[in-house]
């Protein structure tokens, strides 16, 4: 019986980099660790880190509070950013209709209920993560496929013209702040 020599298991990430890590605190006080490459996908966070002057030495001692994003959404966002941190930069879109295929991993990640998706999009918008925004919008856009206007109205909660008119009338009838 041969004994295989013990070799240390080295994570791919460790081979590629000795990561600088940052700490993020969500609005409900969950703490997340995120690598430098991943956090760069968020323009908001990276601008914050740069402006705060956080470095490899002091990053973990200075957690970044993000008050507009709860723990659940932050977990999804961190997973997404870690997954895509080495992606090549996307080419500029030449057409407004986006021609990309949503990868299966991301489709699974974004298979959440619509209210969560709504909140995730707002969080993504706040953190300015373009790729995640594209993917979330594709998931919502795909809900429209092969639907009738009536079905679209239900899926996207679109009021009818009559409902919009009624809302407008009641808004104009209600007294203003002084009255």
């Amino acid at each position: 019986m041969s004994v295989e020599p013990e070799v240390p298991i080295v994570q791919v990430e460790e081979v590629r980099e000795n990561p600088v890590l940052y700490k993020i605190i969500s609005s409900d006080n969950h703490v997340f660790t995120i690598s430098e490459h991943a956090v760069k996908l968020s323009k908001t966070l990276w601008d914050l880190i740069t402006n705060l002057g956080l470095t490899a030495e002091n990053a973990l001692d200075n957690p970044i509070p993000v008050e507009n994003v709860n723990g659940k959404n932050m977990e999804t966002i961190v997973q997404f950013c870690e997954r895509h941190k080495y992606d090549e930069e996307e080419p500029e879109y030449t057409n407004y209709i986006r021609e990309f295929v949503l990868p299966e991993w991301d489709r699974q990640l974004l298979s959440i209920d619509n209210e969560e998706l709504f909140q995730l999009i707002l969080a993504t918008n706040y953190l300015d993560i373009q790729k995640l925004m594209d993917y979330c919008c594709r998931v919502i856009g795909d809900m429209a496929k092969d639907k009738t206007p009536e079905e679209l109205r239900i899926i996207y909660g679109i009021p009818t013209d009559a409902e919009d008119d009624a809302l407008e009338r009641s808004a104009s009838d209600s007294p203003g702040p002084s009255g």
Partner: protein
Amino acid sequence: MVVKLLNFPYLIQKEIITNMDFTSIFLLAECSRRLASVVYSLKYNLAELRYSLNRKEFTVHVSTDGETFDAVVSFEFVKEFSDNEDDFFTIQILDHLIKLRITQDIEGKCIIQVCRRWRKLIQRQFQQEFQTLFRRVPEFVIYTPLRPILARNFSNCESVTMDGNVVEADVVEEILSQFPNLKNARLCWPTWLSVNADSKLLKLDSLVVEFCKTPLLTVLLRGFTGSHLILRNIHLEVFEVEEFIKGWTSNETFPNLETIQIFTSIYPFEWEEILDRIQTQPFDSSKRPAFYSISSQKYMDSANSDFDCSNWVDIERQGDRKLASIGASSKLKITAVFNF
């Protein structure tokens, strides 16, 4: 749980809508006036918008690259809906509440069925909507055996394709009269068509004719006054090509011609015979450039708009001494460029 689209900030609404396919975008605009205003405020960078009209359908196609077209929706005109059918939605046009039903064909294309009696109203309404939505001047493809059902004059439309082998001159003229600013036309299978010498067809900027026979061919080769002429799959004899070249050099025909492409079905076409009989000059770079670029012409044979004329021979027109370059890139294709 719904995703309330209108509750998102405007920029996110825009991102979501531009991630939809064109059919969904169009149907979304039908949901409400408020949403339509959002959908219509966005820019969709389309290369082409095309309306196809035939006996049963009015189909809207779009192209983002100018070459491949996708169907956005087809309006299928049916005789009548039966009373027990459901899945309708209604739209109001003028004082009429019109019932529509959405379905799909086997390829998944969106079909909207509507009663035949509303055809003109529906076409007028949706032609206008698609032009506003996509901000493109449409081109039309009209199947001519059916006397065309056009909703109105299209003063801004520049390109029309007429398809169908049973073509009468008055049908062609009637179609042309509905497009007062028409510049480009393509006629497919006008086999036995003949037009008068004052036909608007002869005055178009760019004309493509496929599979036509003598009556029309004769008129075209004597009376076309536009800039670009393409003749495909035609039976053109050597002497006819020679006559056309002589007509140009003697300053009798084709005063404004810039390019002509002839795809003859005669094989072998004795091109050298013509060259032996007409006076030609070899390419001289001091007299003209080696390449001719064309930017405005539709329906060009190749996507590349540059003709390499360095191996072509030149002929000179009497009077203004204008040069034309002629090349036969294969036995079946002759190209000439005239505005040097």
